């Protein structure tokens, strides 16, 4: 049966930090698609990709996997399918 899980403020704060870094990555991706030889932008991209990894590792330790099909490790029991989903929080 489903049970209510109230998320702590830290969920929203950490999620927002991920959204910020990942947004920079989206913007740089689209930019680099039309400016593929901009080295400064590529360095910034790689730095942001590293930061994103770090933040997601921290997030997943507390709140479970962000991705699946093997893109994240699993806890026991399988917690990927647990609510809440992004549209519910």
């Amino acid at each position: 049966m489903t049970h209510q899980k109230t998320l702590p403020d830290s969920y929203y704060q950490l999620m927002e930090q991920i959204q910020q870094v990942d947004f920079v990555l989206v913007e740089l991706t689209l930019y680099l698609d039309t400016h593929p030889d901009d080295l400064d932008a590529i360095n910034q991209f790689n730095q942001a990709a590293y930061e994103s990894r770090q933040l997601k590792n921290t997030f997943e330790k507390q709140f479970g996997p962000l991705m699946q099909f093997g893109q994240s490790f699993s806890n026991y029991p399988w917690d990927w399918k647990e609510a809440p989903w992004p549209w519910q929080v």
Partner: protein
Amino acid sequence: MTYTLVKCYSPYISKMDPCPPMLKKCFSTPPNLYIPFQPYNSEQFPTAREALYKGTLWTCLYDPYPLKREENLE
């Protein structure tokens, strides 16, 4: 910035128009219309947080809405 992000015009007003006339109509002319190819080393918003909440990383592409439309006539 050498361009405005809104353009306005005055539609013809007839005494036969049933609704009270809108003296001025305005429309967006967003920055992408003025940038043929984004230059290298374009200015960025200083933080990732600001970029997210502006909806773009690049200051030259930011276009707030709604604008204060009144300022843009003449």
